[in-house]
């Protein structure tokens, strides 16, 4: 602030009015620097401004200095609003001075006013301007003065309502009107903008004759030579049209609107893009136009019927030819912005006149072929609004182009087209069918849009009861014809058609007796997908009840009270769904046996998807079952893959390695399913054991010369099976083969054939065996510390579910690239019952590497005691194969030194 002091000194002395400090250009610029510097103190600013104000009258002889001084003051005003008032009141006297002075004063006023908050700005102006002053300035011969007072007025008029008025409305309008005839185009434009602003602000309060008067002037100006004036004039015509349309007056309104409409239409052929855009925007604003004129705007040829309306404004040309083909030109325009604007206003009028809608649909449909995506979207939007208003009357000729949109590159366009289809009324069965097919094509090409497509199909089916019934009957016939196990219904097209068929019975309870029962039962497995698409329309529970009710699946309806349903799907209901799925899974076996590997895989994948969706809403108990099924399906997928490989190995190259990998995966998946659940029924346990026998058979046939170890293992499993229940054909066959010492490999196919998928229907009341791990005080941001080479401790919270005291659990810890370390978990250290055991303990990790930081993967594993014995290389590790019970956790360590 010291440097500032030296400058302030001479300035403060100037406060003395006698004699005032004479500002020259240098001192003015230092004053400017002071005022603009944000760290200048308030006192300094005040004194600087004061001295500037005092010296203003003396500067008036030197116009350059005066205008500079004024601009300095104007610049400082927005930074220091408190000074505005004093600045304004001292420049007031200068306003009537020389031309240059008053223009400088006006520009200073303008910048002060614009920088103020809304009301302040205009009240400042109100305080110094009055009618006489404005009128004398407005009629000045100097362009600068006129332009600035005009800009001030435009500024004020925008805030007309919230400030005191220094001009009456009438005078204001007159001044603007006068400016619209100015010789400078920019003033004409500003004046029109001012009038528009006035009309918008004063909207309802304005007298009827004002918009009429403005309209007349604007029409006079739409032929202006200057592009910007034409743009503004067209905008004003549109605005006046809008206002006059809303106001009630005695005049023949339609005639008046027709005149305005045709006037704007005549601008649709202007050479300036901006004018054309504005013209189409304005066309959208003019309502209540007669059909005749609207129709004329769609035809380049002059139509025969007579224009009935009389116009209040005399036109020098017949109004009809002006309107001819305006929209055609608009949608054919070279610039997409114009086409877009034309399209929007076309849509606005189409909603209001049915006759016009019928004709304009041709053009809107044609716009689907436009090269600009935004135009296509705008056209779709217009079509959508027309559909929503019920004035879309589609014809066959449009459908090719329209349905093409469903396979369009752009997802927005596809979405837009589907949105329209949801509301559309289709006239013919053929069109309905081709629409459904096109939606299916959409689904096949873009499966990620399934939800939207299903919803469109549903709405389509709902809106066309007769047609969808027809489709339903065809589908039922098709289902009857196909043999069992032919899983065509896994195809997306089948799912899509089913949605169409169940739509109308579902939404209105109509068509129910006519719709073939088989369709409802086929729709049950698709429940998840359908209900996701119909979110917000029907809840999943209702849907399921409905489908089960009408299908031939037996279930207990009393379980399904609506109150319960809202909380989730009941257990029994879930069981029946699961049973249905398990039956379907059984079907997959027939595909695997029949070497239909690809079909089976596809089918299993879709089953998996269903399970995922259903489990979102399922209860805790059901989740266990669903989890079991998903694990089971994984096993089937692997078996199907292996089966495929075995089939192909005679024909093509045979990669033993990949078989081993698959078998290894299968083996571990089986282990996982066996040790992740408890509470098996006898049947399920047998089935799982048989599956593991199957794995052994695969391994066997691959090894060609089976080891004794393998044989022993196999026999022990068979004897285990024998102990549980009587042997199945499959097990008997294996037993026979082993006893006969014949090659299992040769009989692989016959073995598979006798393998039966049974016991799955008994899946119930299982409990998951699982563990939860929580590492205390560690995350990647705040790792645990360690001293390299010395053991480190990890504090863990362990929760175990459904473990028995005979289970052998281990903590598996591994660092990438190193041998894992196992720590035995003694269950006696845990608290709680068999259901839940909890324990917190500090586990040591011995082999900390000699690096700055590392991470350990920790998880809890269970030893698979019934599996074949295998000597593991770790001395202090599990003796049998293990399978994971918990999710792997990462524990981060950083060395003490690096901290």
């Amino acid at each position, binding site marked *: 602030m010291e440097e500032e002091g030296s400058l302030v000194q001479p300035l403060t002395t100037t406060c003395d009015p006698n004699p005032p400090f004479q500002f020259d250009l240098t001192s003015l610029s230092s004053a400017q620097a002071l005022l603009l510097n944000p760290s200048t103190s308030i006192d300094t600013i005040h004194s600087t401004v004061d001295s500037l104000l005092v010296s203003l009258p003396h500067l008036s002889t030197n116009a350059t200095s005066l205008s500079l001084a004024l601009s300095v003051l104007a610049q400082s005003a927005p930074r220091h609003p408190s000074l505005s008032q004093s600045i304004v009141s001292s420049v007031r006297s200068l306003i009537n001075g020389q031309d240059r002075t008053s223009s400088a004063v006006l520009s200073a006023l303008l910048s002060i006013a614009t920088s103020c908050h809304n009301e302040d700005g205009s009240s400042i102006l109100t305080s110094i301007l009055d009618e006489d002053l404005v009128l004398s300035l407005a009629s000045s011969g100097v362009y600068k003065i006129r332009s600035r007072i005009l800009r001030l007025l435009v500024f004020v008029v925008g805030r007309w309502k919230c400030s005191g008025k220094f001009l009456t409305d009438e005078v204001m309008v007159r001044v603007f009107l006068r400016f619209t005839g100015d010789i400078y185009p920019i003033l004409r434009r500003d004046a029109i903008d001012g009038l528009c602003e006035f009309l918008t602000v004063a909207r309802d309060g304005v007298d009827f004759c004002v918009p009429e008067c403005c309209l007349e002037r604007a029409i006079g100006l739409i032929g202006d030579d200057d592009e910007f004036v034409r743009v503004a004039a067209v905008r004003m015509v549109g605005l006046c049209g809008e206002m006059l349309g809303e106001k009630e007056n005695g005049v023949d309104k339609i005639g008046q609107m027709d005149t305005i409409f045709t006037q704007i239409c005549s601008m649709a052929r202007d050479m300036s893009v901006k004018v054309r855009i504005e013209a189409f925007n304005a066309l959208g604003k003019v309502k209540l136009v007669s059909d005749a004129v609207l129709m004329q705007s769609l035809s*380049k040829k002059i139509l025969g019927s007579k224009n009935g309306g009389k116009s209040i404004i005399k036109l020098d040309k017949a109004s009809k*030819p002006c309107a001819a083909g305006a929209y055609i030109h608009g949608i054919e325009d070279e610039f*997409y912005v114009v086409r877009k604007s034309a399209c929007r206003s076309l849509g606005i009028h189409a909603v209001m006149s049915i006759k016009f809608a019928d004709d304009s649909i041709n053009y809107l449909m*044609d716009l689907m072929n436009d090269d600009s995506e935004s135009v296509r979207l705008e056209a779709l939007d217009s079509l959508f609004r027309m559909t929503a208003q019920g004035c879309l009357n589609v014809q066959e000729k449009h459908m*090719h182009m329209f349905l093409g949109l469903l*396979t369009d590159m752009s997802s927005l366009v596809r979405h837009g087209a589907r949105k329209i289809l949801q509301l559309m009324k289709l006239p013919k069965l053929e069109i309905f069918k081709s629409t459904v097919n096109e939606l299916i094509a959409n689904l096949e090409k873009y499966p990620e849009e399934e939800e939207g497509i299903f919803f469109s199909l549903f709405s389509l089916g709902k809106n066309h009861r007769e047609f969808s019934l027809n489709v339903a009957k065809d589908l039922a016939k098709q289902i009857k014809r196909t043999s069992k196990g032919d899983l065509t219904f896994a195809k997306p097209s089948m799912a899509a058609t089913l949605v169409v068929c169940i739509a109308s019975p579902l939404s209105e309870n109509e068509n129910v007796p006519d719709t073939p029962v088989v369709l409802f039962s086929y729709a049950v497995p698709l429940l998840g997908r359908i209900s996701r698409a119909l979110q917000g329309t029907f809840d999943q529970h209702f849907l399921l009840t409905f489908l089960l009710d009408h299908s031939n699946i037996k279930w207990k309806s009393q379980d399904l009270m609506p109150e319960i349903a809202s909380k989730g799907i009941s257990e029994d209901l879930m069981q029946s769904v699961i049973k249905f799925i398990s039956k379907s899974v059984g079907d997959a076996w027939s595909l695997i046996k029949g070497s239909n590997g690809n079909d089976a895989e596809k089918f299993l994948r879709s089953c998996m998807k269903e399970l995922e969706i259903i489990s979102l809403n399922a209860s805790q108990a059901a989740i266990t079952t669903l989890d079991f099924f998903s694990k089971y399906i994984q096993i089937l997928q692997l078996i199907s893959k292996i089966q495929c490989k075995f089939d192909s190995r005679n024909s093509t190259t045979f990669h033993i390695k990949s078989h081993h990998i698959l078998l290894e995966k299968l083996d571990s998946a089986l282990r996982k399913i066996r040790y992740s659940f408890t509470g098996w029924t006898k049947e399920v346990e047998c089935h799982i054991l048989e599956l593991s026998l199957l794995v052994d058979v695969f391994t066997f046939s691959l090894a060609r010369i089976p080891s004794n170890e393998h044989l022993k293992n196999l026999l022990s499993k068979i004897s285990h099976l024998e102990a549980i229940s009587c042997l199945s054909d499959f097990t008997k066959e294996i037993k026979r083969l082993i006893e006969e010492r014949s090659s299992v490999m040769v009989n692989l196919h016959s073995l598979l054939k006798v393998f039966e998928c049974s016991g799955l229907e008994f899946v119930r009341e299982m409990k998951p065996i699982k563990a939860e791990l929580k590492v205390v005080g560690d995350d990647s941001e705040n790792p645990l510390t360690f001293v390299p080479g010395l053991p480190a401790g990890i504090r863990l919270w362990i929760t175990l579910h459904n473990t028995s005291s005979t289970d052998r659990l281990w903590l598996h810890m591994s660092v990438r690239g190193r041998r894992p370390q196992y720590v035995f978990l003694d269950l006696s250290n845990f608290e709680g019952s068999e259901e839940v055991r909890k324990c917190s303990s500090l586990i040591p990790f011995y082999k900390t590497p000699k690096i700055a930081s590392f991470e350990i993967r920790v998880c809890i594993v269970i030893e698979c005691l019934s599996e074949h014995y295998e000597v593991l290389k770790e001395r202090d590790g599990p003796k049998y194969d293990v399978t994971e019970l918990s999710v792997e956790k990462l524990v981060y360590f950083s060395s003490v030194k690096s901290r």
Partner: protein
Amino acid sequence: MAIQCLILGAGQEVGKSCVVAMIGGKKIMFDCGMHMGFSDHRAFPDFSLLSSSNDISCVVITHFHLDHIGALPYFTEVCGYNGPIYMTYPTKALAPLMLEDYRKILVDRRGLEEQYTYENIIHCMNKVIPIDIKQTIQVDKDLLIRAYYAGHVLGAAMIYAQVGEEKMLYTGDYNMTPDRHLGAAQIDRLSLDLLITESTYATTVRDSKYLREREFLKAVHTCVAAGGKVLIPTFALGRAQELCILLDDYWERMNINVPIYFSAGLTIQANMYYKMLIGWTSQKIKDSYTVRNPFDFKHVCPFERSMINLPGPCVLFATPGMISGGFSLEVFKQWAPSDKNLIAIPGYCVAGTIGHKLMSGKPTRIDLDKDTRIDVRCQIHQLTFSPHTDSKGIMDLVEFLSPKHVILVHGEKPKMAALKQRIESELGIQCEYPANNETVLVPTTQSLKISASKTFVRNCTTELDGDERIAEGILVMEKGHNAKIVSEEEFLETIGAERNVVSFTGWVSPLAQ
């Protein structure tokens, strides 16, 4: 003052466009075309009507079509015109191709005598000064010309000429609606004394182009979807690119994988020119050019003759149009007998060509010559694309420019008469359609600079009457002096007269009725 227009060609006919206008004492020749229908002296404009070929200030060519440029080498090399020749860059690039192509056909195929040689063409083109759109060229001290975008074909321009206060515009051929590759004609508001406009479609009002596009795309799509082949016989420049952009776009949007072929030759060369001259195409192409050149068609594959009979659907653009011979005829012979295939004929076909036969009713067989007979079982689709503006477009342009006088050229007499009627009645503009070799005199307005006395100006600013400013003064024109406007008092002072006031009083009798 007046503009004197000598119509050397395209007066009440289509062909050999050539107008010589004398404006402000300067003679300008607009276009120098030939008539394709004649091969004798009538093919060229009658240059003998010009007193001397070298009193012409400049020749301006609007575009490269032969009926606008065909006689240029003859005029410069044979008649000996030596002055400047102006044309746009694309026209300069493409004109020699067209001229040489035509010369070859004339000499090699029809065995006629050539009017000018290849060297003549090259020599003539060397004299050409290229101009750009909206570039103003000061031809000499008084005469300036400016080119405006005309659509129609690549590089087509409308020519504005001005000498002093006299202004005129010669449109050449133009199109008021944009197509897929060219924009619409674009012009400023000019207060013209004379507008010379083409009037090819003086009475036709064309429907929306979308309808034509939709039908074309549907026909092609249905055909290829059913495994058929589509033949589009077209000329190398313009239509081929227009349709190909349309198809390429549609293919892209609809994910269609059917190949589109271009028969080799001029078309590929033409595509190259289009790629270079992007600035002369439509806004859309200019916009998308920043991402990729739209003339690098994504779905167009290279074509070989052996591919004609390959199985599977395809679309083929083959030259020449109208199936008048050459490659398109060869393909037509192979494809016409299958009912799966489609022949799409864009535009007009001259009588006698196969294209014309196909368009005028569906024939079942065509006898090519004594021994060759083609069974026509394929579908035929006719396209009515035209790069000329329709009557609505002409009227719109005339209305927008509002010239004082209109002359119609390049059209058919009865239709021109109808259009003249409309221009005169609806727009109130005087209009004429002279025949060839006629001269029209168009009067022009002349503006005169006058000075105003101070008193008069002061009176103007003070005598305000509401919104209207009415000033009264007296115009004084003296020999040897500038015209001057003075106030009443000043006038009285200069002539030394006194003001006399005569007043009248009237009586109205209450019983008069």
